[in-house]
């Protein structure tokens, strides 16, 4: 089955809005190579569960593809057309299972040494798309905040080494009531610019009290889902012939309800199908998110930035469980979870850098600001157009002052 043979009725298994969208662009899709189309359909099939920003992006991309002339299609996609695919891939049901096709395609590209060619083709396409479909600037300059080091007392090593060159380092921030001040700032921004999924709070532990207008995802609230998922993984892994790729396929077929998500009792006033799907994907697609809270916090932030492109994002790292050494592994099973606050601080330090990097990939980066703070302590780095790079301040400052200097 090749894209040129696409027909509207083949999308009958798609969710309603996705079906409505894609059937308006069959003609455009028919002109494209198989090495490209399933990647796009992987986005389209989830349209009903996408954040508003993502929906707009998919709509604009499809509209752009429709507008291209035959010559432009040749130019834009010649690198994709050069990718040789196997008969097995061509006969795969890539319309209804585009994500699984992309997984198999990835494996095939590695095996046939075509991955570098595909990567070049993909980057070329992304560049052309960005030039053809200008992105809208954000409704207000973005603000990212990362809080690290919960539960750490003394710490002698230098923090924020990767971020310091990009902003101002403060050594004497008054820590009292710091988290509440930051949550208050997020709430104020959410009130000033009430955009759906525009303002987020991600907590690697149990979420602190926060404004209900803020989208909240926490490791603590997802514990029942994580436990259910780990049990499912264990039981699937015990089946004969189950391998990592087959396991990934099983996980890709899970629905939020399979993990107990989607109930009003999960702390939400009402189920949110879009957020439930997001949370499920964080747990099923993010390596390590099920077992280490620091990985959960960083990956969730990465996905929130990439997909929802929030105007405000506050990420708070919490202590993760300790990796168990061999003598403990050998001695007994223990259900007691021991935490590693210092290791978690190191994770959060790098995680903060990655949060800033990912925020800077979004439109309006030149106006965006970023703050990282060692919770309960005086160290922070503030990055933004109004902050001098590579500077150090040893003056006493309030967190609220840092936020106002950054805005």
């Amino acid at each position: 089955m090749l894209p040129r043979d696409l027909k509207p009725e083949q999308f009958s298994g798609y969710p309603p809005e996705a079906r409505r969208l894609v059937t308006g662009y069959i003609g455009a899709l028919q002109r494209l190579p198989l090495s490209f189309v399933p990647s796009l359909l992987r986005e389209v099939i989830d349209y009903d569960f996408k954040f508003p920003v993502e929906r707009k992006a998919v709509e604009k991309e499809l509209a752009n593809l429709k507008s291209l002339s035959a010559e432009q299609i040749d130019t834009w996609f010649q690198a994709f057309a050069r990718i040789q695919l196997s008969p097995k891939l061509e006969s795969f049901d890539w319309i209804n299972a585009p994500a699984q096709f992309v997984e198999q395609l990835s494996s095939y590209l590695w095996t046939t040494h075509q991955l570098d060619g595909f990567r070049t083709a993909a980057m070329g396409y992304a560049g052309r798309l960005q030039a053809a479909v200008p992105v809208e600037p954000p409704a207000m300059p973005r603000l990212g905040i990362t809080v690290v080091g919960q539960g750490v007392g003394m710490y002698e090593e230098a923090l924020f080494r990767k971020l310091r060159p990009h902003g101002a380092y403060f050594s004497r921030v008054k820590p009292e009531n710091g988290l509440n001040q930051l949550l208050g700032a997020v709430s104020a921004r959410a009130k000033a610019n009430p955009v759906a999924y525009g303002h987020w709070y991600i907590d690697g532990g149990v979420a602190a009290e926060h404004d209900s207008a803020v989208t909240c995802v926490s490791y603590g609230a997802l514990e029942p889902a994580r436990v259910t998922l780990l049990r499912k993984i264990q039981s699937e892994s015990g089946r004969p012939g189950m391998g990592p790729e087959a396991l990934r396929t099983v996980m890709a077929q899970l629905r939020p309800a399979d993990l107990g998500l989607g109930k009003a009792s999960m702390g939400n006033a009402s189920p949110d199908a879009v957020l439930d799907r997001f949370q499920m994907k964080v747990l099923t697609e993010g390596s390590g998110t099920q077992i280490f809270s620091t990985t959960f916090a960083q990956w969730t932030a990465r996905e929130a930035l990439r997909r929802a492109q929030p105007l405000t994002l506050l990420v708070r790292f919490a202590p993760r469980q300790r990796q168990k050494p061999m003598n403990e592994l050998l001695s007994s099973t223990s259900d007691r979870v021991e935490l590693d606050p210092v290791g978690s601080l190191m994770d959060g330090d790098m995680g903060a850098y990655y949060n800033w990097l990912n925020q800077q990939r979004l439109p309006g980066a030149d106006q965006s600001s970023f703050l990282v703070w060692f919770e309960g302590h005086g160290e922070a780095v503030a990055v933004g157009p109004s902050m001098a790079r590579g500077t150090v301040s040893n003056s006493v400052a309030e967190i609220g002052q840092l936020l106002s200097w950054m805005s």
Partner: protein
Amino acid sequence: MELACNRREFLRTAAGLTLGGTLLGSSRLVRAATVPKRKKVVVITFGGGARDQETFAAEGQENIPHLMKDLIPQSTFFTQVVNRGILGHYVATASLATGVYETINNFASLPPEHPTAFEYFRKDLKRPASDAWVVAPSNGFNRIGESNHRSYGSGLGARVLLPKHLLTAATSGGRDFEHLLRDNYETPFYAPELGGGEIELEQLEQILKLSVNEFKKKALTLSSPDELSVYIARQLMKQMAPSLLWVTMHDIDIAHAGAYSLYIEGIRRTDRLCADLWKTIQSEPEYAGNTTLFILPDFGRDSDDDSGGNGFQHHRTGDALSRTTWMMAMGAGIREGVVFDRPIEPTDLVPTLGSMLGFSASFAQGKPIGELL
């Protein structure tokens, strides 16, 4: 090339190395002992991928103090080893062992398709099975000792020791030790069915001369699978003194779980364990003065700058940083304190071993590395 230039500068300033190609004459060449002992080679694969910024870059050198201070000054160091194959640990290590970019399924327990260095070594030099060994921490590596190539038969390769398997057998398995069979942190519950080549529990005593109790007691003092592997490797060196020994380390692969501190801890531990093995080589009578040690990662990890990846966590993008890594050689016949920038490939290792030990790697894709011969 930019990566190579950075590495070269870091190493020159921090480890006091000189550029290869210009000062060869003045670099000390480690000569073999005057009484000719049989040449031996030990290969260590460094852990499952580590990036420059956590190792040889200025900010990363604090994580590899033993490599920087002890090993590199005694080595010939190659700054650009470019892996053009599949960036999966088992298939990449198999490629290192065969000198061919293998395309076998990374997650299946399959032998390489092309002859391994162990098969070339044993067939050409008529060496017994006891003279070539692999110590691997991961169950997925159990078939790496020999290929299914038609020109070589079953039993003509290296014997493979899986320390985790030994330990599980010694402790009678059970739910308490399921984590010991954890292959990697990306697929924590996956363990392919083991088949062929692994040593049975009853050989623990015959080959390694260890009682079960002794083994268990020692294992309790160790903190990681790679520490267990090095303990087993050292025991093997004492008892069997194989001429070709391959040790695959894997602790750094914890990076897949996304915890940066554990990735750094893995690098630091691997650094220390490499130094430990080098000390063993220098102190064991069968190895001192006649052994060449190679240390090299299978590949790197993704760059922070590629939005398709998640930085250190994985090696999925195929970008330059994930493909480009390094290699050091030290010991008998190797010049000390020299750096070479020209790109080489991991497939060059097996032909080089062939030139050193006297076997022909006839099916390998790579070429012997002249700077080491």
